[in-house]
């Protein structure tokens, strides 16, 4: 553990620490930022009234929409002379949101990422290849500063350029890889297609930390088997700090949330009501020590569950499930809730189907049509039509029985599906429902 005193703290002690920090954070936001002051006043809430952690329920939520409306600097709570860095979300829907960091914020973030890397078994002995994109996206620099804080040797290669990634991985003796899970699979595919002599098992690579997009257990197994490594899920969002919000440990059973830095709640996404521990809903974040951009009850749109259980790693931090999907990404098809990650898991289960797929949703008349385009690699290709037809029928049947939706399955040529070097574009929604 990088910060054993905080990570394995007695839970009652931690609650005291959280309350003390929460009171500072809420007051800081109220006194130093006009948006928060206006919103708290409108809700009839004053920071003096925060006496217990539960009192936070009286504080209004901060939505993604409000973040966008206040872009770029409207949610900063320090003067610009104290801001040393800005990042921006990838902004997949609408405007990007901008977040700022003071020197202390960068130090906090670096420490959280050092803790994340250490939880995956990393140490100052490791050579960390950071293949997340560098730049406005928080992935690259977040992992970079965390690696340095831990004392690991950081290779700041950034995303893309697969042949160079693989050459460096081999020649520089990379022991740990940080990138999106889809890019990890992309790298394995690239090696098998273009570098016939390349064998991951003959490299020094032992573990990887993967995040920035939802992924499945089946993808973990594929990465672990094909790369011969341990793969860990890491989670974060730029609005809250970037990667370093929660991470898996050696147990690979849920992600520990860094509760000394963030207070977390699960709410019903429709009513906003706080749900008891263990129930699934939207996770809401409150930062406890951030200076530049305090987030108070930020609605993440991420759907998960929070629970406490003794963990073999010794951490007493609360756990969250792997995020099943964003409530933003959730597709409602003929009234059925479907996450792209569920379709992915199903494709992975059908032997040989690599997870290169795209979901196209359209509306014909009053009915939604869903089409899943699956790439045909040689492993699943047959010269016989009946075998190919049986494959599409099997996928369609599994979707009907598991997800309860009827989909058209289209078999397409490899790379007929757009594949970005970073986040894979999985869904095309042509319905224009808004």
């Amino acid at each position, binding site marked *: 553990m990088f910060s054993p005193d905080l990570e394995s703290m007695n839970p009652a002690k931690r609650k005291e620490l959280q309350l003390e920090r929460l009171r500072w954070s809420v007051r800081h936001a109220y006194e130093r930022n006009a948006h928060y002051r206006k919103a708290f006043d409108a809700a009839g809430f004053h920071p003096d009234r925060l006496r217990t952690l539960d009192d936070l329920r009286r504080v209004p939520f901060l939505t993604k929409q409000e973040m966008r409306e206040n872009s770029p600097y409207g949610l900063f709570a320090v003067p610009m002379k104290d801001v040393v860095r800005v990042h921006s979300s990838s902004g997949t829907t609408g405007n990007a949101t901008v977040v700022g960091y003071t020197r202390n914020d960068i130090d906090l973030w670096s420490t959280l990422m050092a803790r994340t890397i250490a939880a995956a078994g990393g140490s100052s002995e490791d050579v960390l290849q950071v293949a997340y994109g560098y730049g406005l996206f928080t992935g690259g620099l977040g992992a970079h500063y965390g690696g340095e804080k831990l004392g690991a040797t950081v290779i700041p290669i950034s995303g893309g350029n697969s042949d160079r990634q693989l050459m460096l991985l081999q020649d520089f003796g990379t022991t740990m890889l940080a990138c999106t899970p889809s890019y990890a699979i992309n790298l394995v595919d690239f090696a098998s*297609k273009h570098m016939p002599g390349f064998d991951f098992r003959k490299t020094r690579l032992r573990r990887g930390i993967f995040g920035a997009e939802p992924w499945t257990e089946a993808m973990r197994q594929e990465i672990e088997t094909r790369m011969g490594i341990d793969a860990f899920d890491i989670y974060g969002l730029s609005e809250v700090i970037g990667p370093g919000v929660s991470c898996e440990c050696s147990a690979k059973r849920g992600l520990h949330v860094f509760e000394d830095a963030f207070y977390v709640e699960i709410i019903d996404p429709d009513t906003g009501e706080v749900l008891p521990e263990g129930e699934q809903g939207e996770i809401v974040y409150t930062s406890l020590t951030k200076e530049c951009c305090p987030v108070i009850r930020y609605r993440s749109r991420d759907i998960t569950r929070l629970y406490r259980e003794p963990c073999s790693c010794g951490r007493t931090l609360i756990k969250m499930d792997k995020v099943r999907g964003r409530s933003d990404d959730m597709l409602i098809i003929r009234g059925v809730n479907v996450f792209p990650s569920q379709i992915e898991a199903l494709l992975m289960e059908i032997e040989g189907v690599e997870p290169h797929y795209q979901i196209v949703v359209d509306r014909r008349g009053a009915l939604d049509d869903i089409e899943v385009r699956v790439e*045909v*690699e*040689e492993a699943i*290709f047959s*010269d016989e039509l009946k075998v*190919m037809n049986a494959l599409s029928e099997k996928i369609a049947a599994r979707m009907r029985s598991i997800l309860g939706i009827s989909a058209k399955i289209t*078999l397409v*040529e490899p790379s007929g599906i757009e594949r970005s070097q970073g986040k894979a574009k999985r869904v095309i929604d042509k319905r224009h429902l808004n």
Partner: protein
Amino acid sequence: MNITQLSVFLENKPGRLQHILKVLADRAINIQTLTIAEVSDFGILRMIVNKPDEAYAALKAEHVTCSRTDVLAVALEDTPGALYRLVDTFSKRSLNIEYMYAYTDRHGEHSIMIFRFDDVEAAKRALQEEGYTVMRRSDIHTE
């Protein structure tokens, strides 16, 4: 050694077949015969070419999904009833033909029948027992 058929996965879109043909043309690979089996969205192109291994490598390099399939080739007299008698050989032994296609040899005297079986070796034995000459690799391929 049997005859190698090249099987290619093709999306049913303009330019896809042309792309495959260009890859082969650029490498001076000759196509003896081809057939396409299709459904609405995609087709499977099956070809007999003079250099199947070279063609396979060239298509792979272009990220085309393709595979090599063992098939049987039989030269038949171009006379009525010849194909009937040949197929009867398989029927008698309950050997199921997955698919077949044909072309005429250079001199126009023989039809070359291409057969795809699940069990190639059983089909080959059946033909030899009935006195047919199964074509050798060197009769068709030049590599």
